[in-house]
């Protein structure tokens, strides 16, 4: 699903791409994704899932074993990396150590040949864009990690690519700088209007930056959706569990009638969940920890189960409460510490865990 208000064709179209490495390792299996022009698109997955391989296929450093990649309407199968309308920010930044900052940024403009008169102005413009104006004469050894990354960004953006590829660009930065750079990258993308494709294993990074996220696991594409959709409506157990925290329950499908799905959950008994269409076969149910509330009495208007508090983990803005029922079912509830008083009071003993039936997710995969 590509949402483009102007009805333009997708800038990137990945059609049934598979990749096997010598030795029989299948890195990617039948991946199809379309990315709209101007989108901030994230490839998200645990390390080793194949997301970097997919990015390297887009850059031209790997060739797909099967399938085709179209960028800007052209089939890229036989196009070398230096002739593709894409540029990349590498995980190690790969800033040339024997060149100054300005020489690094100018490299892509010089190496292609052609008119050289406009190069200094374009380099200066690119350095201003990443807020490194005046750093042109420095050597990369004199820069901090964050500055080095800006050089890598400027070097890629100065070529005005159709697509900018970013391979784990924030993984080498410390936590505070990482958060600042997330906002910076979004600002940059809005300024230049270039399509960004970013690879990350950090779900927070993907959720806070991307317009759409593709979740990849063991070379398979599990779900492509907006951050909100991905978090609130994951379609598979893996996505539900990988993005954020999740309470997962397994159960037997008792059937769907009148817009209500009845499930016999192991250890908790029958649950009635609103559903839209008929669902058959075994299902999993899932509830986010922050959708659950703790009560000292049984509430009437929601699903509620009595449980014992096992452990409490105070985390500043929220407190995570771990509970279990007599039948061995575990809950994790996240309580927002909206006031100092609330933070100081911690649940203990026997309480009721409750949530709205509408906040229950139905997982079929």
């Amino acid at each position, binding site marked *: 699903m590509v949402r483009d208000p102007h009805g333009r064709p997708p800038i990137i179209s990945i059609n049934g791409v598979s990749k096997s490495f010598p030795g029989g390792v299948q890195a990617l299996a039948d991946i199809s994704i379309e990315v709209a022009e101007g989108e901030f698109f994230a490839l998200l997955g645990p390390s080793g899932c194949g997301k970097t391989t997919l990015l390297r296929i887009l850059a031209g450093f790997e060739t797909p074993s099967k399938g085709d990649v179209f960028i800007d309407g052209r089939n890229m199968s036989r196009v070398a990396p*230096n002739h593709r309308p894409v540029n990349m920010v*590498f995980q*190690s930044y*790969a800033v*040339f150590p*024997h060149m100054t900052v300005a020489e690094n940024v100018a*490299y892509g403009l010089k*190496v292609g040949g052609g008119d050289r008169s406009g190069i200094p102005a374009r380099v200066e413009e690119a350095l201003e864009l990443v807020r490194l104006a005046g750093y042109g004469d420095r050597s990369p050894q004199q820069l901090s990690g964050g500055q080095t990354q800006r050089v890598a960004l400027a*070097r890629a953006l100065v070529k005005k690519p159709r697509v900018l590829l970013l391979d784990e660009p924030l993984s080498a930065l410390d936590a505070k700088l990482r958060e600042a750079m997330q906002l910076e990258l979004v600002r940059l993308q809005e300024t230049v209007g270039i399509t960004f494709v970013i690879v990350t294993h950090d779900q927070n990074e993907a959720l806070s930056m991307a317009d759409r996220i593709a979740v990849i696991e063991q070379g398979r594409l599990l779900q492509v959706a907006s951050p909100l959709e991905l978090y609130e409506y994951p379609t598979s157990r893996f996505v539900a569990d990988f993005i954020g925290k999740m309470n997962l329950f397994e159960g037997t499908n008792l059937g769907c009638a009148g817009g209500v799905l009845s499930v016999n959950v192991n250890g908790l008994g029958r649950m009635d969940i609103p559903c839209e269409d008929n669902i058959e076969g075994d299902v999993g149910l899932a509830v986010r920890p922050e959708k659950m509330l703790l009560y000292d009495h049984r509430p009437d208007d929601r699903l509620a189960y009595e449980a014992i508090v096992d452990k409490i983990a105070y985390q500043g803005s929220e407190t995570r409460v771990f509970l279990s029922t007599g039948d061995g079912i575990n809950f994790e509830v996240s309580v927002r510490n909206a006031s100092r008083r609330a933070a100081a009071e911690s649940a203990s003993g026997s309480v009721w865990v409750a949530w709205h039936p509408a906040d229950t997710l139905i997982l079929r995969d």
Partner: protein
Amino acid sequence: MSRRAPPGPLDYGRRLWLRFSLWATFLFLYAPILMLVAFSFNDSRRNIVWRGFTLKYYEKAWNNDSLIEAFTNSLTIALVSTVASVILGMMTAVLLWRFRFPGKAPYEGAMSLPIIIPEICMGVAMMAFFARIGWPANLPWPLNLGAITIAHISFSFPFVAMVVRARLARFNPELEEAARDLGASQWQSFRDVLLPYMRPGLVAGGLLAFTLSLDDFVITFFTSGPETVTFPVKVYSMIRFSVTPEVNAASTVLIAITLFLTTIALWLQNRAQSS
């Protein structure tokens, strides 16, 4: 108080026994060389007693045509074999670093064979080889140095390859990919990224090859003819009669040239790094 405190990492130089071993090492390394240089200025036919300062043995060495010829031969061979070894060694290092091919492990082993084979065996093998293929003997200078030069290249380039390979092992392949990504062709990314990265290794390997070639005796002895005497071979034939200050003088000039070239190379390398 400070006497009792354990020494810090940089304090060991203050310990007497450590200073002693430091100076002893210097003495063993450089005393013979200093002696050689000093006695090249000695006004005596024997290298034993100091009789006063003179430059006449330098003049004598300069006027000794066969010594100068040997000297020229050595330098010519060293220069040609260094250039060839650097190019060949670099290509071998890049080949072994970048590519996987059947028989790579045996190839790698075979490549370092000239380093481990005893020189005397190399010398005999070279002599037998050039005799067997009928290498022409009476070519005009400098073509008559061909056999020696080839022999020198064959034992020098593995050293260059080893030095460059060791440096390449720490190369970040993303640098080359970044160049390709920015529009460089294979050749441009090699020229702009890989070559500057290898440069210190090439300079070090080149220096190694130059010194190896300049002072090689054994292999040269077996591959040289009566017309192609190199400096070490010539010195050997001269000291069979007597060690004259003339030999000292010629050796001092050789040391000076080597030091000069090394300094130039290091200076070039420093300049390339700081700019």
